[in-house]
């Protein structure tokens, strides 16, 4: 019961954080917040939460009390993140060397943010795959 309460509390804090973050982000960007934008900021996390909640309920109904992760999952994720660590470490170093050799002297931070976003996305998808193998 205590675990369930903690889960709900965490989920609530994340949801509120996402909504507040959305408003802060838009106000920093200087966007005028009207009703449709506010609805999107509040609605999107709620819809996302509802979809994930429904999926977890469906999974529980289908799989019963089988856990989502166990000792093998932890081992696989450990190995995966070890691989990711070296890939990012040496990959980013190699990418910098290649860019320097190509004659590129400066990197735009906006481009760096986009690259990092893609990297995080790929790592995230990889994590999901590694956990389900």
């Amino acid at each position: 019961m205590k675990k369930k309460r903690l889960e709900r509390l965490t989920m609530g804090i994340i949801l509120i954080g996402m909504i507040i973050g959305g408003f802060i982000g838009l106000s920093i960007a200087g966007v005028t917040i009207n009703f449709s934008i506010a609805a999107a900021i509040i609605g999107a996390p709620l819809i996302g939460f509802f979809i994930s909640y429904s999926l977890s309920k469906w999974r529980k109904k289908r799989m019963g009390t089988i856990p989502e992760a166990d000792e093998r999952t932890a081992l696989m994720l450990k190995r995966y993140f070890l691989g990711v660590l070296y890939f990012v470490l040496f990959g980013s170093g190699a990418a910098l060397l290649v860019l320097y050799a190509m004659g590129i002297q400066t990197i735009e931070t906006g481009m760096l943010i986009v690259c990092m976003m893609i990297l995080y996305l790929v790592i995230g998808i990889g994590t999901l795959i590694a956990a389900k193998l």
Partner: protein
Amino acid sequence: MKVVNHIREIRLKNGITQVKMAQDLKITRQTVNAIEKNKYNPSLELALKLIRYFNVPIEEMFYLEGYEEE
């Protein structure tokens, strides 16, 4: 030296499904499958749980490859 197990044979002899075994031992069905196919060696903790679950001696369930006859 590779560790081999007889879990699949013992499980089928007892008429237990992989899903039931996963539920009882609190592990994923993928782990049951990987152990049965000798692709993953369970931890000592899980190995002891398996022995207790099937109520068989350890040497009947796990052995080193090439040492089965002993």
